[in-house]
């Protein structure tokens, strides 16, 4: 205390003087959290308008305006097309920009959420006087007093405390209230008892302490600055889209520049060539793509919201799908964040109690003759009570006054042995000694008819000291060594599961042995010679749905890591209970026990699982964490600080994983922010966690994440379809310009029409593809490898561009030539016609029949051509949307009209009325139909080939040499990692090991491994995962055998998975 006084220049009794406090406030600043300086909104908005594509569009718009201006200046009143185009382009850019800005704007300042945690008022002793001050005015060395119900106003060193308990759960993840006392119990300031943290809640008792940290220098302040300092990672889908947009923009500029040069060389005036450049950019850039992606994502977000996942950041929808590692907090996420009775020990047996949230599990056997006494003790030796007025509420949801353990016992008693209040009424309390940390037990004495009943509960060893006998089959026996051993064994076993064990005993006293009003201290003397009734163990039980969800994650190739602030024993027990440490896995400690070796001699690599504590983590060399993550597929991190959580996330990311972090506490917020996708708990989650997260689980249910993963994968698959669809029409949009410039035909398709296609008619079908259901069991596949399974890859682009796109272009040109010929312009005349066609002074241009056309008539005809070309693209796009519905299955298999949405979408936007700005004639719809059919048939043939010869080269699909071969491998276990990677690396797992359905297949003809890890378990299979990157830290999932699957099915499933697809 003296040291402290000196260190902080204060007095432990009188506190600081007012003047000194004011001076320090000046020096250190207020005790509050400061928001970081952000970029101004205008700059951010500007950034939205200056992306790669946007810049291109600006250039295009500028060219349009210049061209319009020049035409104007030359007195050409002919057309304001260029003006319209410029306006449309600018509108597209600005609207997209606003949308993006809005999205960004929504992820608001994270600091604001911390502010709610900060207390407003503090009781402080200054110059010997106790006064209330604003919490922001606290300074170092201030002497503050806290009492139950207050928030701790700063980081304080406790100088004196009476039964003070604080709730650190949001800061450290410990679900139990922590006692605060003046003694130093641990070196780490996070664990020692004599420091209470800023913003934590003082639950009971009082304490006086010295302020040792204010504002940013508190623990929570550091977390806050950590959280706000962590940059938001780019989501995988954003990376994908950026990658894609870069390519598109590059190609657009390349094409544009090429034709600009060509046009200049041919001898066009500069302005004309610039307009060509602009037109090519407009034709090639998929203006509607971003809108499509956004709408698809928000549809999925909506679907997820119905399943209790609220998505804050749209792109996060997909991120969950590509997640390969989930770092889950324990408390409140995997567990229910409440204490509950897990086990009972009576009559020498361990019985499991029902720990489910809704009491739907099986009740234990209550037939033992010892049970009535034990239940009576549990009921009576308890100070907690239900809050009044909750008769209708299920027991588990009732609010209780009392601490966590007591309420757990109370609820347990209410459920198992009927109304507690009635029982207590029958046995009125005479006297009691409440629990305290030095006694470690609690006693109460009740009137029980002619006798008095003394009941006692507490730590088993203290309880045992006071016992003379034990209860078996309802009868009291004297203690014997054998029974003691069995009791110790039970204590160890239950304690080893991370449960808190309490012993219960009782004794019948003659009437009047304890008078009403006996001082509590006296009771300790009465309570001897008791009869031991049984043990009850408490735990924060895992949620019922979690084990199933963890299993699903594993099937889906997702590794689940537990990262908690709680104790390693508890963490390990919960991990084992939910399957994060799977049955049969051993930690190095387990191996040591099994082999009777000291821990040092055990090679940690033999162990599949590993529990690492925060202090061990701190001692690790840089890089060793990655090594650990690589070596042990099943990891549990305990006693971790927020920084360490961040470190773990970063390590996983360095290994190439897409990391999801779930958490609820303030301490999780930096990791949530750092993660590729942060998932916060909606009910238990602190505001800070929710703000930092990208997604909120409204029901706090870990299982919802699995739904999210499924939807995320589905949307990635479907986005692929959407984009393939969207890309296809770029060729028929671009081709008219190329032909226009090279073959000098009258322009077949105008820029405005292109924009109309991009932004109006094509949005609906491409969005409707987002509703497609999955073609195969996506949850049995590995997460995609973000470096290899791109959203858009070469086969997809090639297939869209060079095959379907070309067919569409031909359809367009056919229809164009037909329309021209029918009006009198035969194809051969049309070629090279452009200069005369576009001569505004030529009013008597002769067609193939000798008819003479004025300029305006020709222009009208040209618009007709736009219409015709437009119709052709649309007709082909109908076929295109149909073929894109599936990638491998035949349309007939998938069901052509399964989704009315698609059909309505098709009809609505392609119905003749829509483009009524144009002229319409039915026969123009007929001409491209054969081409539409051709597309359908062609793609069906391709799909047939894909199904017949999975992985083989076949008609219509450009394969990637060297990566497509392979026989179908084993279908279970790791599926070779091909879940949605058309063509690129259809790595087919090679020869499978063991019988089908055993374990791991080695992916076949993949590039030589950059890094391979030996599969640590089971050791007899020497499989190596050769996929670089992500799989290094992937858990090699050992899937249960599935005897139901026949070989035929097996074959089929494999094929589906292996096939080429686009």
């Amino acid at each position, binding site marked *: 205390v003296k040291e402290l006084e000196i260190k902080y220049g204060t007095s432990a009794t009188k506190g600081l003087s007012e003047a000194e406090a004011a001076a320090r406030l000046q020096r250190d600043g207020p005790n509050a959290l400061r928001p970081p300086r952000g970029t101004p909104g205008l700059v951010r908005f500007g950034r939205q308008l200056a992306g790669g594509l946007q810049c291109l569009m600006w250039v295009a718009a500028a060219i349009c305006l210049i061209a319009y201006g020049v035409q104007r200046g030359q007195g050409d009143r002919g057309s304001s097309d260029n003006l319209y185009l410029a306006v449309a382009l600018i509108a597209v850019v600005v609207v997209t920009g606003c949308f993006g800005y809005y999205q960004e704007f929504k992820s608001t300042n994270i600091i604001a959420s911390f502010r709610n945690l900060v207390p407003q008022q503090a009781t402080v002793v200054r110059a010997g006087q106790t006064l209330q001050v604003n919490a922001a005015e606290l300074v170092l060395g201030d002497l503050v007093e806290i009492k139950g119900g207050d928030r701790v106003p700063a980081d304080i060193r406790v100088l004196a405390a009476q039964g003070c308990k604080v709730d650190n759960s949001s800061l450290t993840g410990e679900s139990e209230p922590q006692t605060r006392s003046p003694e130093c119990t641990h070196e780490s300031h996070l664990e020692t008892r004599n420091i209470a943290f800023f913003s934590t809640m003082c639950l009971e008792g009082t304490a006086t302490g010295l302020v040792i940290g204010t504002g940013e220098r508190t623990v929570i302040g550091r977390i806050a600055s950590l959280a706000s300092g962590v940059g938001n990672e780019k989501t995988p889908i954003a990376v994908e889209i950026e990658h894609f947009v870069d*390519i598109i923009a590059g190609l657009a500029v390349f094409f544009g520049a090429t034709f600009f040069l060509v046009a200049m060389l041919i001898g066009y005036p500069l302005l004309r060539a610039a307009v060509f450049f602009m037109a090519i950019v407009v034709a090639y850039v998929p203006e509607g793509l971003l809108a499509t992606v956004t709408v698809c994502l928000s549809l999925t977000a909506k679907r997820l919201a119905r399943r209790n996942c609220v998505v804050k950041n749209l792109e996060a929808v997909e991120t969950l799908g590509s997640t390969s590692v989930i770092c889950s907090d324990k408390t409140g996420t995997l567990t229910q964040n409440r204490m509950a009775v897990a086990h009972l020990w009576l009559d020498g047996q361990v019985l499991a109690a029902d720990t489910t949230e809704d009491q739907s599990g099986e009740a234990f056997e209550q037939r033992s003759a010892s049970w009535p006494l034990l239940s009576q003790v549990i009921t009576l030796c308890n100070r907690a009570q239900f809050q009044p007025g909750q008769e209708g509420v299920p027991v588990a949801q009732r609010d209780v006054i009392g601490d966590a353990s007591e309420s757990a016992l109370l609820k347990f008693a209410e459920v198992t042995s009927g109304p507690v209040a009635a029982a207590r009424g029958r046995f009125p309390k005479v006297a009691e000694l409440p629990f305290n940390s030095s006694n470690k037990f609690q006693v109460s004495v009740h009137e029980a008819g002619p006798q008095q009943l003394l009941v006692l509960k507490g730590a088993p060893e203290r309880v045992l000291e006071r016992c003379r006998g034990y209860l078996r089959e309802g009868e009291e026996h004297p203690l014997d060594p054998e029974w003691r051993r069995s009791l110790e064994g039970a204590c160890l076993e239950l304690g080893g599961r991370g449960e808190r064990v309490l012993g219960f005993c009782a004794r019948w006293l003659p009437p009047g042995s304890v008078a009403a009003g006996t001082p509590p201290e006296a009771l300790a003397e009465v309570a001897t010679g008791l009869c031991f009734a049984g043990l009850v163990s408490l735990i924060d039980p895992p949620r019922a749905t979690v084990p199933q969800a963890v299993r699903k994650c594993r099937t889906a190739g997702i590794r689940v890591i537990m990262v908690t602030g709680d104790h390693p024993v508890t963490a390990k027990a919960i991990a084992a209970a939910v399957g994060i440490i799977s049955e049969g896995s051993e930690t190095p400690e387990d191996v040591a026990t099994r082999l009777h070796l000291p821990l040092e001699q055990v090679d940690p690599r033999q162990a599949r699982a590993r529990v690492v504590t925060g202090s061990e983590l701190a001692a690790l060399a840089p890089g060793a964490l990655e090594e650990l993550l690589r070596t042990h597929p099943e990891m549990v991190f305990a006693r971790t600080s927020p920084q360490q959580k961040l470190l773990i996330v970063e390590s996983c990311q360095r290994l190439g994983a897409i990391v999801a972090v779930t958490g609820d506490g303030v301490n999780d917020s930096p990791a949530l922010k750092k993660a590729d996708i942060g998932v916060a708990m909606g009910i238990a989650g602190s505001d800070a966690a929710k703000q930092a997260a990208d997604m909120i689980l409204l029901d706090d249910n870990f299982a919802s994440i699995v739904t999210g993963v499924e939807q995320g994968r589905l949307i990635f698959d479907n986005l692929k379809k959407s984009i393939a669809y969207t890309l296809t029409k770029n060729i028929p949009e671009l081709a008219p310009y190329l032909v226009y410039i090279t073959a000098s035909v009258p322009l077949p398709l105008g820029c405005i029409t292109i924009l109309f296609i991009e932004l109006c008619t094509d949005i609906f079908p491409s969005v409707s593809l987002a509703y497609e259901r999955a073609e195969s069991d996506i949850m049995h596949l590995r997460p995609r490898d973000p470096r290899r399974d*791109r959203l858009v890859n070469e086969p997809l682009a*090639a297939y869209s561009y060079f095959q379907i796109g070309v067919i569409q272009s031909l359809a367009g040109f056919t229809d164009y030539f*037909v329309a021209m*010929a029918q009006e009198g312009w035969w194809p051969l005349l049309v070629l090279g016609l452009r200069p005369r066609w576009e001569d505004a002074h030529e*009013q008597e241009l002769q067609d193939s029949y*000798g*008819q*003479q056309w004025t300029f305006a008539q020709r222009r009208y005809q040209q618009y007709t051509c736009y219409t015709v070309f437009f119709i052709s693209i649309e007709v082909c796009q109908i076929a295109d949307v149909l073929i894109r519905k599936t990638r491998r299955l035949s349309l007939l298999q998938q069901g052509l009209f399964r989704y009315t949405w698609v059909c309505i979408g098709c009809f609505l936007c392609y119905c003749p009325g829509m483009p009524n700005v144009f002229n319409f004639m039915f026969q123009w719809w007929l001409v491209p139909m054969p081409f539409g059919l051709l597309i359908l048939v062609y793609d069906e043939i391709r799909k047939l080939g894909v199904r017949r010869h999975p992985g083989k080269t076949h008609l219509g699909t450009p394969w990637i040499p060297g990566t497509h071969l392979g026989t179908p491998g084993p279908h279970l276990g790791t599926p070779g990692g091909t879940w949605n990677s058309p063509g690129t690396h259809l790595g087919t797992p090679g020869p499978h090991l063991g019988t089908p359905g055993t374990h791991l297949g080695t992916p076949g003809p993949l590039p030589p491994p950059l890094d391979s890890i030996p599969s640590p378990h089971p050791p007899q299979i020497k499989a190596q995962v050769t996929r670089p990157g992500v799989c290094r830290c992937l858990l090699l999932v050992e899937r249960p055998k599935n005897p139901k699957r026949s070989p035929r099915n097996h074959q089929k499933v494999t094929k589906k998975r292996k096939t080429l697809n686009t």
Partner: protein
Amino acid sequence: MATGRNSSGTRRRRSCWAAPGAAVKILLFYVIFYGCLAGIFIGTIQVMLLTVSEFEPKYQDRVAPPGLTQIPQVQKTEITFTASEAGSYEPYVRNLDNFLRDYSAEQQTENIVFQDCGDTPTEYKDRGPYNDAQGQKKVCKFRREWLENCSGLNDPSYGYKDGKPCILVKLNRIIGFKPQAPVNESLPPEVMAKYNPNLIPVHCVAKREEDADKIGAVEYYGMGGYPGFGLQYYPYYGKLLQPRYLQPLVAVQFTNLTYDMEVRVECRAYGQNIVYSDKDRFQGRFDIKFYIKSS
């Protein structure tokens, strides 16, 4: 093609080098694929062309009603010249000469091709169905002499050297189009004066009201002295059946144009099925500017 930068791109390139056979296969595939597509494309267009008649377009909704155009063809529809400088109007004269060559009497001598349709406007001359079952169709003669001062026979400068420029007005050719003579009410009085039920009259006035007095006298020379197109020249049977068809012409001479200022003239052809459109300023009418410099 799309991913040059990422690893799969490099891998692909590498494997292409490693397995040139595969690259050749891809190439071969595309050659065959595009070959097939080209075949289908050309085939479709051929089939489509079969449905299109050689003699008559399937649709004429874009080309009708016809445009009205003038000779000489001029850029920006402006005729600027100095009467005393032969060089300044030489292009116009040459343009007129070229155009009128087909109208010369010696070009219209073959009686298999040409038919004398009289000196006065008469009814349409229907020449049967639009095919070559009866060979080529005959064409009405148009005498260049009818154009009098603007025929270039007497005055090879078409009046330009006197500052009295001629222009030729003609209706665009449209297969099967039968212009209908105007009904009375809508016509300007000058046109009414020379009304004929088989005549599509042509009339030129000042574009702007205030120019009305600057135009001066306007002479019209047409078939048999009628200021318009006789209906016997219609319908047109197309360049296959009437390769030497002669459009009826009206010559318009402005004999007293004000010099040294821009005078805008609008000429119209009148008929029930000849309409004017704001979007197409050459449909059934045109306007032209004269700027005659005095020195």
